């Protein structure tokens, strides 16, 4: 039993530590995975933005080149052929170049590196446009040769070369950056994939461990419960055994008291009977003696003395028998009370105690004793037993008054959790400290023996209170008064005792 207890104990100590920790780790991993996913999505969208931006830049750069080349080839066609469609096309393309440059400038707004590379492009474009415009102007004004010389001079080609170089550099630059980003992105994705897989594996591992731990704990708990149940059942059996033993012992005592009292009574009948017979015989003898004595006064006097001694002895014998009879009756009464089955019912203690107070009202008035009954809490208990208890206590309170002081008896009550406490308080002669226990013993009394009684009442009361499931105490000071305190369960449980 001890070993199982310790294992069960250690299991219950371990599980609350390991389980939440595992759960926490699992949560952290899930959170990290989620964060990584969010970051990845964000990153992907960033990457997409960058690609779009790069394409945008490349596109606008291409557009500059395209327009310039269109303008250049149209310009050259015009100067060679002099046909107006070439001129129109040249003008159209030249006009489109400006916006293309603006759009490119705008697309690289956030890219300092490109801005550096791009800075000379607008200047070169402007110069190129100016060069072309000059040649077309010369041609229009009839200076065909001068215009052709200008084209042949190579200024335009050089400018165009510069622009192309700058733009190709930018183009390549952008592509390299894009490639770099793509590589980085791929690597990040790989890392994230690895992390996700690892995290998932960890979560699976944690889940598995948790399931194992839970199963082990529940197995241990089941075992512990089984053990506990067995122990409880065993305990119940032990308690039932002991209760049965006690009950038997109690019954034995009751039977013993009952039988003994009866067997004691039987010889008493004889003693009393034959003593009375002797008394009758004695009467006859002395009558006959008196008749015989005639005038012998001396002898008559002696006879009277003898008769008196006779009566004295018989008187003592009969007095003792009477006393013994009362004691035996008390024991019988106690033992009979001990055998009586209690019938718990709801009782208004106000009514019960007041009716007792009413029955003693006459005696109280004679002895000038004031009996007060406060409001008392009700109880579920045996009515007859409670009547006996309180009748006895009130009777005692009224019996042992302090001479020269008007008697006062007060009955109080209060509820204390599952118990009710009733107090019978008097201002009587009180009980000395050393007698506080003794007065509860059978045939024992305390103080001045000036009142009739056998010393049964309190023993009886205490036995009753005990059987009702309560207990009795007292507070008392010699010459001041006494308070008997009866504590009883609010609801008497009868199953156990009733079975007895």
């Amino acid at each position: 039993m001890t070993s199982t207890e310790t294992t069960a104990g250690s299991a219950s100590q371990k599980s609350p530590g390991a389980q939440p920790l595992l759960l926490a780790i699992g949560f952290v991993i899930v959170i990290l995975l989620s964060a990584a996913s969010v970051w990845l999505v964000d990153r992907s969208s960033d990457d997409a933005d960058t690609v779009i931006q790069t394409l945008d830049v490349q596109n606008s750069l291409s557009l500059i080149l395209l327009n310039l080349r269109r303008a250049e080839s149209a310009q050259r066609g015009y100067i060679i052929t002099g046909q107006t469609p070439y001129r129109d096309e040249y003008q159209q393309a030249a006009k489109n170049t400006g916006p293309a440059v603006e759009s490119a400038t705008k697309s690289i707004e956030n890219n300092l590196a490109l801005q550096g590379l791009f800075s000379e492009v607008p200047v070169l474009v402007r110069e190129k446009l100016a060069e072309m415009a000059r040649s077309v102007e010369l041609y229009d004004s009839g200076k065909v040769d001068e215009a052709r010389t200008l084209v042949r001079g190579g200024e335009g080609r050089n400018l165009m070369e510069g622009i192309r170089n700058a733009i190709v550099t930018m183009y390549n630059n952008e592509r390299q950056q894009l490639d770099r980003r793509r590589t980085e992105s791929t690597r990040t994705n790989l890392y994230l994939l690895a992390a996700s897989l690892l995290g998932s594996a960890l979560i699976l591992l944690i889940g598995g461990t948790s399931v194992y731990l839970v199963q082990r704990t529940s197995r241990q708990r089941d075992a512990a419960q089984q053990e506990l149940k067995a122990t409880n059942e065993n305990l119940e059996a032990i308690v039932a055994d002991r209760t049965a033993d006690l009950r038997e012992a109690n019954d034995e005592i009751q039977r013993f008291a009952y039988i003994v009292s009866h067997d004691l009574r039987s010889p008493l009948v004889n003693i009393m009977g034959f003593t009375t017979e002797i008394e009758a015989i004695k009467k006859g003898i002395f009558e006959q003696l008196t008749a015989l004595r005639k005038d012998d006064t001396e002898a008559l006097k002696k006879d009277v003395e003898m008769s008196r001694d006779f009566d004295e002895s018989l008187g003592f014998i009969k007095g003792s028998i009477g006393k013994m009879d009362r004691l035996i009756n008390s024991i019988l009464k106690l033992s009979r009370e001990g055998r009586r089955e209690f019938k718990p019912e709801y009782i208004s203690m106000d009514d019960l105690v007041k009716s007792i107070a009413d029955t003693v009202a006459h005696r109280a008035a004679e002895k000038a004793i004031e009996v007060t009954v406060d409001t008392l809490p009700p109880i579920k208990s045996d009515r007859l037993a409670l009547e006996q208890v309180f009748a006895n206590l009130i009777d005692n309170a009224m019996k042992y008054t302090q001479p020269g002081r008007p008697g006062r008896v007060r009955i109080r009550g209060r509820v204390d959790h599952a118990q009710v406490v009733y107090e019978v308080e008097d201002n009587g002669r009180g009980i000395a400290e050393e007698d506080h226990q003794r007065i509860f013993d059978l045939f024992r009394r305390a103080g001045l023996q000036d009142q009739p009684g056998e010393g049964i009442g309190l023993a009886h009361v205490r036995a009753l209170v005990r059987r009702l499931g309560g207990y009795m105490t007292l507070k008392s000071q010699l010459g001041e008064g006494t308070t008997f305190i009866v504590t009883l369960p609010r609801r008497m449980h009868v199953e156990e005792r009733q079975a007895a």
Partner: protein
Amino acid sequence: MTEHVQIIMIEDDEGHARLIEKNIRRAGVSNDITPFSNGTEALKFLFGTDGTGASNRGRAMLIMLDLNLPDMSGVDILKRVKENEHLKRIPVVVLTTTDDEREIKRCYDLGANVYITKPVNYDSFANAIRQLGLFFSVIKVPESTRA
């Protein structure tokens, strides 16, 4: 009660038996009193050697019964008498020290005709027995059934 009615007194205490007899006689009852101080002998007399009670048929009897006997309980005797075909009409007076209510009820349930508690106070005792004697002198006792 006619002269031929026999009083059977089953009482283990000789003193009690003597006191009872004295006081019954004082009431003027002169019937024959047969005392038994234990249950076995009393049963042997009542039920005869064959144990059927047939030996006593045709006789008029009255039983005074104490409950506390050394060899058995008077209740058992009462039960057997009241269950016997020949003896069941014999009036049984339970005369005992027990005044336990359950015991009294039990005796009447079993068919006891009278239940009297012996008082320790001799005046009461003597008075009770004398009254019983007076009672004996007026009651009718049937003869045992002739089966």
